[in-house]
């Protein structure tokens, strides 16, 4: 392929682009594309509005169009405020606008000129000139015409016309090549082309001729059979008369069909090959990774020639590889070629198709040979691999095989070009490729993502950096998602960034907002999902129910209903497929898994199609697991007695193994998951699990003063207890809500909760529950400067706690309250004695937290005891720790 891109400034034969900068906003690109396909003609405002908004233009369409025109003018380097000059390209010409471009700077104009001269040369029998001009015209193409923008009526019809024109030109160029005796090098290209265009009889005919002239008569006949089968099976028609006549001539070995060589072939060096996607103007970040990759380039003979670039879908592997190829072009003078390894509907190409594609892009070969058939391989692949080997031999090339599905897919191709530096991009780690260096791309850093977004949307984003930060966070810093979100916002100049962020944050919309033109985040993420097995697909969907931000393996095992070892295998396969992430906070600690935000959204979308009851069953399994561990942790954290709870044996999922001996740490690590489990259990109508799990968390919430989660879970638990008509549960939840209200110094509310709970406990005959409520009421009185009534309430509670082992914790708590009564009344000595008794009781109970609190209180009293020697309540400290970590500040007596 000849590089003709030096002077071309405007491109429509592929993704719409413009030098030096292509507009990033999709609507502006649509405007550019429409004006270009009608270059040097006046395009009416009405036609432009139709193209931009189809049949639903906004009320402000005319004004918005002017904004887009203004943006395009800026992109063209024109200053909108200056009067029109002859230097301007974009003219306001009634009834619309005209874009002036010169032929040499516009790929479509050049294509049409070369196509015309090529056809004229062909018609007069100058096949060399025809082949050259037509090849040059086709080299101007960089992809699907007018791609990268949404199509309205003008662009849609033009796109179809251009695609047809390209195919016709290609057919004519091949016809010229056949006339020049290049049938050997045409076979590979033609095989690929008939695959792409199975109903183009002319291409089938060219292939049959090329094969026939390459002494492959039987392959030529098979080519006819395949063509006929495709036409009959898919269209229900027989091949046309021309193809049938050609078939007859091949059957008859018509000598006139054979190649008549007018002169012996002259070897010529292969031209440099350049098949890279257009440079991304806003390529952002990745400098460190590019530098690392550049160091891996081959420097010495025999050094490894393979770099695997991994990372999840949408992370920018293709853009990275293309950028690397572009930056390193100097080291590869014979060309840089990127070949996508997926065809229609994202189906992975097989190795033979890859070899064909490479041969096509590398410009064919001048010395074909007939390689021996290798055992176990298809003849086509063996032959193609041989031809590929010859094609790359001695050439300094950089090949990018983009989006490989597996090692098997690329291994034969890599074996055919051992001395070519090859970059393979893949979502999978491809660890089976011998000697490969691996580079894994992660999502962008927040600042990089924000820079990328700003480069797409433009300076107006700088006015609302908070919204920009939120948008990139909602995109999970995934480059594809940022690009899509940016294009979406750029296309809506009347939307604020905050509005757009709110739209992206709408959980009900799922991934729907993450589509812009032909960029579709959902489609990109789905590719990885479709490649994994059914067990992994099930796991991917179900694990969406796991807590955020991350979850342990045991939670996955519970959700998937699998033994831990099996669950680990499935989860690790999801990690390999880049569908889950894994982290280990500290060495020796178990791994925790997490979804990328958008992958979790996808998983939820897919989960909606699971059979009825699957979500509820998964939720129940997870909440049940959480409950057993939380109850064990609570028994360690806030012990009711000296006896240690049963840890459930030595198994990998035993409570003792999962929680360990540090319940505070376990609660802190699992807090988000526990709260999520309560919400899910309530949403699934699992009332018993909802309130039992909540009560198991109450002690941790109280110790950490986690007010928001405390309130939210308990409101759900209260609702669950009421729906389950379980007064005991209701009383327990109300008691804990009383604790919360007391901590928040909402005395009347706390008293109301405690009193309601006390009555419920009393009617159920639960003496311990009633006693705990009395302690709560006493605490309210104490911190409301009523030590007298408080003391009485503590005394009543003590009686109810009795001397039974189950009342041990309650009795200790009463000792705390009585000691505080002395302290707040200024009786230091009695307070010291009281706290001493409390510390002893806490130690017997095995509650280190309470024992530490009691000891701290004693130390503080002793620090102040000299001040209190004179008696008098004025000497009481201004702040008193009334429960661990809860300080009463100020003198409540003064507030009364």
């Amino acid at each position, binding site marked *: 392929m000849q590089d003709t891109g030096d002077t071309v400034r405007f491109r429509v034969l592929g993704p719409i682009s413009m030098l030096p900068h292509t507009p990033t906003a999709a609507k502006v690109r649509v405007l550019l594309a429409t004006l270009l396909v009608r270059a040097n003609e006046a395009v009416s405002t009405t036609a432009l509005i139709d193209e931009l908004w189809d049949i639903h233009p906004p009320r402000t369409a005319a004004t918005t169009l002017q904004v887009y025109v203004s943006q395009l003018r800026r992109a063209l380097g024109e200053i909108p405020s200056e009067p029109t000059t002859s230097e301007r390209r974009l003219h306001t010409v009634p009834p619309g606008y005209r874009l002036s471009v010169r032929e040499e700077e516009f790929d479509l104009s050049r294509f049409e000129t070369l196509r015309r001269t090529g056809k004229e040369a062909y018609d007069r029998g100058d096949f060399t000139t025809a082949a050259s001009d037509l090849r040059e015209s086709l080299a101007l193409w960089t992809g699907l015409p007018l791609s990268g923008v949404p199509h309205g009526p003008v662009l849609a019809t033009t796109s179809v016309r251009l695609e047809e024109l390209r195919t016709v030109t290609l057919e004519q160029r091949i016809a010229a090549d056949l006339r020049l005796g290049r049938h050997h090098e045409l076979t590979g290209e033609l095989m690929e082309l008939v695959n792409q265009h199975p109903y183009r009889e002319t291409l089938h005919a060219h292939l049959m001729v090329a094969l026939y002239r390459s002494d492959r008569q039987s392959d030529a006949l098979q080519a006819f059979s395949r063509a006929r089968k495709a036409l009959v099976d898919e269209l229900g028609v027989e091949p046309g008369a021309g193809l049938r006549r050609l078939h007859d001539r091949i059957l008859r070995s018509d000598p006139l069909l054979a190649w008549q060589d007018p002169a012996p072939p002259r070897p010529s060096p292969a031209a440099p090959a350049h098949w890279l996607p257009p440079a991304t103007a806003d390529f952002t970040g990745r400098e460190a990774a590019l530098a690392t990759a550049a160091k891996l380039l081959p420097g010495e003979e025999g050094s490894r020639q393979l770099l695997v670039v991994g990372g999840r879908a949408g992370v920018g592997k293709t853009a990275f590889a293309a950028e690397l190829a572009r930056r390193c072009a100097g080291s590869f003078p014979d060309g840089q070629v990127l070949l996508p390894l997926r065809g229609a509907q994202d189906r992975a190409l097989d190795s033979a198709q890859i070899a064909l594609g490479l041969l096509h892009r590398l410009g064919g070969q001048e010395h074909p040979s007939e390689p021996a058939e290798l055992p176990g391989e298809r003849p086509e692949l063996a032959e193609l691999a041989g031809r590929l080997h010859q094609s790359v031999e001695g050439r300094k090339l950089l090949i990018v095989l983009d989006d490989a599905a597996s090692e098997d897919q690329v291994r034969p191709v890599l074996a055919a070009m051992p001395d070519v530096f090859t970059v393979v991009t893949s979502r999978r780690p491809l660890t089976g490729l011998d000697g490969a260096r691996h580079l894994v791309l992660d999502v962008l850093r927040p600042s990089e993502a924000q820079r990328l977004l700003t480069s797409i949307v433009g300076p107006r984003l700088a006015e609302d950096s908070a919204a920009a930060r939120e948008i990139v966070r909602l995109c999970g810093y995934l480059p594809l998602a940022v690009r899509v979100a940016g294009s979406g916002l750029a296309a809506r100049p009347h939307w604020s960034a905050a509005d757009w962020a709110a739209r992206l944050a709408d959980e009900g919309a799922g991934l729907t907002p993450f589509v812009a033109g032909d960029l579709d985040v959902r489609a990109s993420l789905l590719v990885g999902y479709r490649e994994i097995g059914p067990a992994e697909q099930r796991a991917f969907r179900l694990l969406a129910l796991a807590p955020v931000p991350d979850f342990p393996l045991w939670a996955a095992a519970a959700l998937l209903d699998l033994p831990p070892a099996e669950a680990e295998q499935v989860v690790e396969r999801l990690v390999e497929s880049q569908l889950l992430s894994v982290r280990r906070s500290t060495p020796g600690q178990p791994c925790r898994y997490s979804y990328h935000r958008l992958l979790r959204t996808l998983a939820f979308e897919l989960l909606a199609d699971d059979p009825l009851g699957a979500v509820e069953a998964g939720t129940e399994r997870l909440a049940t697991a959480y409950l057993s561990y939380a109850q064990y942790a609570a028994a360690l954290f806030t012990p009711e007695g000296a006896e240690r709870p049963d840890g459930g044996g030595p198994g990998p999922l035993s409570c003792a193994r999962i929680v360990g001996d540090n319940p505070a740490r376990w609660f*802190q690590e699992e807090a988000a998951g526990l709260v999520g489990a309560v919400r899910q259990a309530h949403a699934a109508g699992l009332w018993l699990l909802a309130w039992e799990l909540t009560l198991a968390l109450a002690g941790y919430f109280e110790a950490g003063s986690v007010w928001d989660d405390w309130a939210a879970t308990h409101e759900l638990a209260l609702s669950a207890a009421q729906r389950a008509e379980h007064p005991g549960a209701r009383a327990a939840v109300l008691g804990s809500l009383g604790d919360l209200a007391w901590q928040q110094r*909402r005395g009347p509310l706390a008293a109301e909760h405690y009193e309601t709970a006390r009555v419920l406990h009393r009617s159920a005959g639960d003496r311990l529950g009633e006693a705990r409520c009395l302690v709560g009421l006493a605490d309210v009185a104490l911190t409301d400067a009523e030590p007298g009534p408080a003391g009485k309430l503590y005394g009543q509670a003590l009686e109810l706690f009795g001397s039974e082992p189950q009342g041990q914790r309650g009795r200790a708590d009463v000792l705390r309250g009585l000691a505080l009564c002395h302290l707040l009344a200024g009786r230091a000595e009695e307070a010291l004695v009281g706290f001493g008794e409390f510390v002893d009781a806490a130690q017997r109970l095995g509650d280190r937290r309470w024992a*530490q609190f009691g000891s701290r209180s004693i130390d503080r009293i002793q620090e102040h005891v000299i001040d209190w020697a004179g008696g008098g309540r004025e000497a009481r400290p201004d702040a008193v720790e009334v429960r661990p970590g809860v300080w009463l*500040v*100020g003198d409540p007596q003064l*507030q009364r």
Partner: protein
Amino acid sequence: MPGASALVHHLVHRPNTPEGVVLGTTGPTTQQFAVSALLPERHSLFNDGADLFHDLHSPAEVLRRTALFVSHRYFRVPQERPAVFAATEVAMTELEPWRRTSGPAHLAMDITLTPADVVSGVPRGLECESTIHIEGVRCGTANARLVFLMPRVYQNHRERGRAMSRSEFTGPTEGELWAGTPAARAVGRADQVNVVLGTPLLTVESELVVEIVTDPRNQVFTEATTDHVPPVVLVEGTRQAALLLAGELHGFTVGSCVLSRWNARFQGFAEPDLPLYCRATAAELERAADGRPALPVALTLHQGSRQIAAVDTVVLQDY
């Protein structure tokens, strides 16, 4: 009823480590606290004349006391190292939750305290950031920056400052002198004993200059046992000067005004036995996001030849 100590509240520590939960200990790292209280309803100063809105005194005072308490109790700053507030800012972000209703209002503050300049495990400074919620609605912020001085440094600082405070006031003395101390209503109060402004002077540049003088009978201002002018006097003095300026010179109805921002940077301590002057100037009238008239008033506090503090405020007109 006395002042600050009547602001009874619960202060809770939200430990972020297991040892913090169990042992109640903290390292010199960022710690989270929460404060919860009922806003005063019958406070002799905070509720005097403030019929429409709760004012900024309570959260400012709570933050001040919390910062001091935590620095000594949790971050182990020795008691002999005096704390200096370098800056304090309290601002309303939503007005409606501050509006007084018939019942008591619940104040909650989420406070993040970050030690700065840690030497041998003890911070030399503290950054305080908090959000204010009233009846569960987020409606304001309160931030402060503290520095803990070594005793000798503090003494030198005080001595130098006191020497400058003893010199003659260098601010403007020419202008229109008012008839006497402003009426309580003119400064947003109802009880004359709470007025802390002397006789105002209005310069030709429309600058208000007024001495801050507290009534010795007012227990709110005298209960503080510190050796410098208590913070509550500085807050109240600047508040009253800002409201007076807004009412007298810009047509605001002081009875339905509220101070929606109070942002102070301190350069030194005010000596309690020396005259303290406040200078106030208003900027161009603005509109708040909800359309209410908002008058920015910049104030400076002076003693002798030195400036004690610079305070930016915004007076909001309710209607």
